[in-house]
């Protein structure tokens, strides 16, 4: 484990939704808190995100959703991560996700889900703990 290296996080949106206020602000917060951010922007497919994650050697992927597309895309992304044997990369979600879907997503293997109104320090603390967990 690279204890002293900066952790790299790939951030991006999947599908056609282009509401990106949240992910842009979170990207800034992560940068300011000492993470490295690879910003993939909008309109990613699960395939393109996984490819970028492998190329960039990231420690986590963070995706943001708004319009109800979170289950469709997260299932695909996780299948693909398993298929490519990169399931060690942590998966984090954010955005408008109804409470009843949060458990289902966690059961699928999502490490954290940050819904609207999550405080900056909560996010940073959760990520720091996530990367410090024993393997």
């Amino acid at each position, binding site marked *: 484990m690279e204890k002293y290296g900066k952790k790299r996080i790939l951030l991006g949106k*999947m*599908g*056609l*939704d*282009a*509401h*990106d*206020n949240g992910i*842009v*602000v979170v990207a*800034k*917060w992560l940068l300011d808190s000492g993470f490295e951010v690879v910003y993939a*922007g*909008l*309109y990613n*497919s699960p395939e393109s995100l996984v490819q970028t994650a492998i190329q960039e050697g990231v420690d986590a992927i963070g995706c943001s959703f*708004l*319009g*109800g*597309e979170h*289950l*469709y*895309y997260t299932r*695909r992304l996780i299948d693909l991560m398993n298929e490519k044997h990169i399931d060690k990369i942590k998966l984090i979600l954010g955005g*408008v996700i*109804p*409470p*009843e879907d949060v458990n289902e997503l966690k059961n699928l293997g999502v490490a954290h889900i940050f*819904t*609207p*109104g999550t*405080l*900056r*320090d909560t996010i940073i603390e959760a990520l720091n703990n996530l990367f410090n967990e024993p393997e």
Partner: protein
Amino acid sequence: MKEKETMKIEGSYLEGERVPNFKTLSGIEYKEVYTPEDVTGALELPGDYPFTRGIHKTMYRGRLWTRRQQSGYRSAEESNERIKYLLSVGQTGINMDPDLPTHLALDPDDPLAQGDVGLQGSSLVILDDMIDLYRDIPLDQISNTMIVEAPTSAVIIAQYLLLARRRGTPWEKLIGTIMNCPLTQFVGPTYQAITTFFPIEYAVKIALDVMEYMIQRAPRWNIVNINAYNIRETGVNAIQEAAFALAIAQDYVRRLIERGLEVDVFAPRIGFFSAVHIDFFEEIAKLRAMRRIWARIMKEKFRAKNERSMWFRTACQTSALPLTAQEPLNNIVRAGIQTLAAVLGGVQSIHTTGYDEAFSLPTEESHKLSIRTQQIIAYETSVVKSVDPLGGSYLLERLTDELEEQILELLKVIEDRGGFLQCFLDRWVEDQITKMRYQLGENFVSGQQPVIGVNLFRDERDSTKISIFRHSDEWQRQRIQEIIDHKKNRRQEPIQRALEGLESQVRKTPEENCIEAIMQAVEDGATLGEIMDAIRRAIDFKRPGL
């Protein structure tokens, strides 16, 4: 260990029991007290140029604003049911939102579209969808706003005109609006969002085609609606919202004049769609300032003679940015206050954002509550019984002047840089938006912008549950299959001919109005995606997935 943000913020507040600053959301300082000295110049009457106090003499005494809740989800049939429900509880206008693949001109069976079909609006692909969507709705009696931007707006308007023709409704009797603004309609003017699936310059050209076509054939139809709401929701402030929107409108006015159209022919059919955020007086002042500035621009710069050309007519939506997922019932209070600001600001129609906004599309219950909010203000509070009741308030008149001054300053910066479209292409707009988003994040963390139940007085024990609209995976699969079947089972030759005709027209004479050619393709059974892909090919634009 770092102290929790909320505790820090709460601690500092409770110490003095004071708000964190005395500024408007856009940073204008509120004075301790306003006096008659703050009011300069004579106050004109409502209905008088430059219409600070309202575009009509009698305003809501003559007629209330239109209650116009956005709706649209899954199929056209289901959206039609929701429209009828809304009308049955007192909605007075329709506000129809298509899904994301429709916005971006992709068919449901496109691999890039499949996860988003029917989620944020209704899936509208072929003429039959339009027929289903407006079944039993009289197109010449209820005004209908269609929330769709160019280039998709060209196909949607073609479907709509064909629907009217089939029903025997003359085009000159159609009442409603096609929003049609490619710079703002999708999610506001963020660069990647609106340039990935279609080039913006040609989208503007198609928007102008729609405007030109409609103004000559449907004189009661609103040809464009500048979506200031979406501009605001990217995180910018009231001054930027107003200046960006007014700059975009000027870009369109100039280009329509270049096409040889008389300003007084088309300007009365240009509308706006504003945000109403949570800073009560600033939002009212913003609407008043926008009316004043637009009237002067139209009269002095574009030499309009008809007063209607000078009217800043605006729909509005109460901003969703202040709404929270924490303690969602608080949103009912917020939206109620925002709706009151819209009414005191003298808008023409209102969408009151649902308290479930931070979770999903509105449920029927939430939709009804939004309409009830407006009805309570309209029928119970008496605020509508006198025109511009806040006119003459020292504070409001001063704030209106200050906003006007700052909006004009920013407008000048944009105009000096070559207009809004140029600023957008130069990424200047993007830079402004990004800065404001970072600021938004800062203000949230520092508590300079308090959000009750979130960064102030947060209650981790709260477990309020509200019912939430659910999507259906099964429906998505059916819809995708339906379009695949449609493409298989139709008469192919006329469609091929129509699409080739369109492609060749755009390739040979890209400046020519393309609405007739699009209408032919729609009538023959072509889909939205096929039509737009023909245009994309003609202008050598390669979209993702092709």
